[in-house]
């Protein structure tokens, strides 16, 4: 469904990705794990088109997209839940969700809002509140809900567990698993490697801008090096 081939990207003159290749197949949850600063977020930003790419290809459903503007990629079916949630804080929860469906102008909002409220009932209770007044966990739910409103086929999730209590992490990752059952494909970036690999089909380990290991999630969980470096065991 998505294939990233030999992707390079720079911040100014400093290259952050030195030729990364990643493959995501339809219906999978694929986890990217790695330390802070490894380039995971840069990769997701490049896939969404908000980070310039200096070399390489990004192919989504057999279509090269590396030259497309960010809003066109959303319209094609790639939505991102960015790191740090990035909500429209002064705007109400419900309007944040409606803006999530910006690329689908002809859509019936009610029919689109219902499944999101079903997935995260607390958003329905707080639908008139400004997004900036939500708690951290609620904000993460809203960020995911907003991305779902775009009707994506591929969901990019950047550090959804960051700063959340363990019970909320479980809740959020549980929601991701339920989304997978509805047929959604997910590319998940996490520093919380054990949680990320536990729900994933496959995983990639990223270190300083390169993929250093990849394989089935269960294999990576059992891999000695991965366990020592990222799972703390």
């Amino acid at each position, binding site marked *: 469904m998505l294939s990233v081939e030999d992707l390079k990207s720079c911040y100014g003159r400093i290259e952050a990705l030195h030729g990364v290749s990643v493959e995501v197949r339809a219906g999978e949850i694929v986890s990217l794990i790695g330390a802070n600063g490894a380039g995971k977020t840069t990769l997701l930003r490049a896939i*969404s*088109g*908000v980070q310039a790419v200096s070399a390489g290809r990004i192919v989504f459903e057999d279509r090269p997209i590396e030259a497309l*503007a*960010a*809003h066109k990629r*959303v*319209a094609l079916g790639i*939505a*991102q839940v*960015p790191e740090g949630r*990035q*909500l*429209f*804080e*002064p*705007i109400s929860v419900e*309007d944040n969700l*409606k*803006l*999530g469906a*910006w*690329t689908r102008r002809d859509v019936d909002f009610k029919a689109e809002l219902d499944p999101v409220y079903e997935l995260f009932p607390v958003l329905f209770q707080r639908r008139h509140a400004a997004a*900036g*007044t*939500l*708690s*951290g966990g609620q*904000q993460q739910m809203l960020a995911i809900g*907003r*991305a779902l409103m*775009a009707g994506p086929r591929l969901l990019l999730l950047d550090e959804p567990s960051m*700063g959340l209590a363990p019970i909320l992490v479980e809740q959020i990752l549980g929601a991701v698993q339920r989304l997978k059952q509805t047929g959604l494909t997910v590319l998940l970036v996490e520093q919380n490697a054990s949680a990320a690999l536990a729900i994933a089909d496959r995983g990639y380990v990223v270190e300083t801008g390169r993929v250093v290991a990849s394989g089935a999630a269960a294999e990576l969980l059992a891999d000695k090096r991965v366990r020592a470096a990222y799972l703390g065991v």
Partner: protein
Amino acid sequence: MAENLQFAFSGLTVGTVYALVALGFTLIYNASDVINFAQGEFVMLGGMTTVFLAMAGLPLPLAALAAIASTVVVGLALHRLAIEPARTANPIVLIMITIGASIFLRGLAQVVFDKRFHTLPPIFGSEPIRIGGAAILPQSLVVLAGAVVIVVLLWAFVDRTLFGKALIATSANRLAARLVGIDTRQIVGFSFAVSAAIGAAAGILITPITLTSFDVGTLLALKGFAAAMLGGIGSALGAVVGGLLLGLLEAFAAGYLSSQYKDAVAFLVILAVLFAMPQGLFGKTRVERV
């Protein structure tokens, strides 16, 4: 007493124009971080184009509409030809581009129009209305009413339509706006168009009172900028309040000190704001929850 009322009337009239210019600054700043110093030229173009179209024989309302439309075209062209090609540049560079554009538009107006002062006939005559010993021109009331209509329309658009929400969303978080698929270039272009329309309307409304010429934009841009700073840059409410306050300050300074120092007030306000409260009256203070 009557004197104070008189100062208040003239202050509010000119303050309304500052408020509209400041609103134009705010719209573009929120969408793009750019302070558009050609904002004053929009005001000039509105007034001058109306004057010349009316002289060419067009009925006044038609001339005014055509002037607003052509100023919008200029605003869009400014965005498309000068801002957009340099969009990856630092906002400071973009601000310099707008200063260049402002000089260019002033020069162009000198050639296309002329270097003389012009006026328009006031809509309801020039017989002052007496209130409490002070006199107010009917055109002043037209200016105030026009500004109220503009502000209400703008508010309704931003608050009641999804496109307006997208405008707020873009100013609140540009990265997130791009990630939900908002074409932020389109939003910035739109903000230039609306700012141009507001500026042109202000120019048309005020011309019967203050006259217009090719170079009225410079000082108006600086005054509008001072008003936006006073209100808190980025705040629409601040722009309106800042504009009215600056107009009042000017009128009272001119009345009680000397009218020669009138134009200095705006610059004193800029300095005072920078020293004492850089975020202005209604500036944002950011709170983040984790």
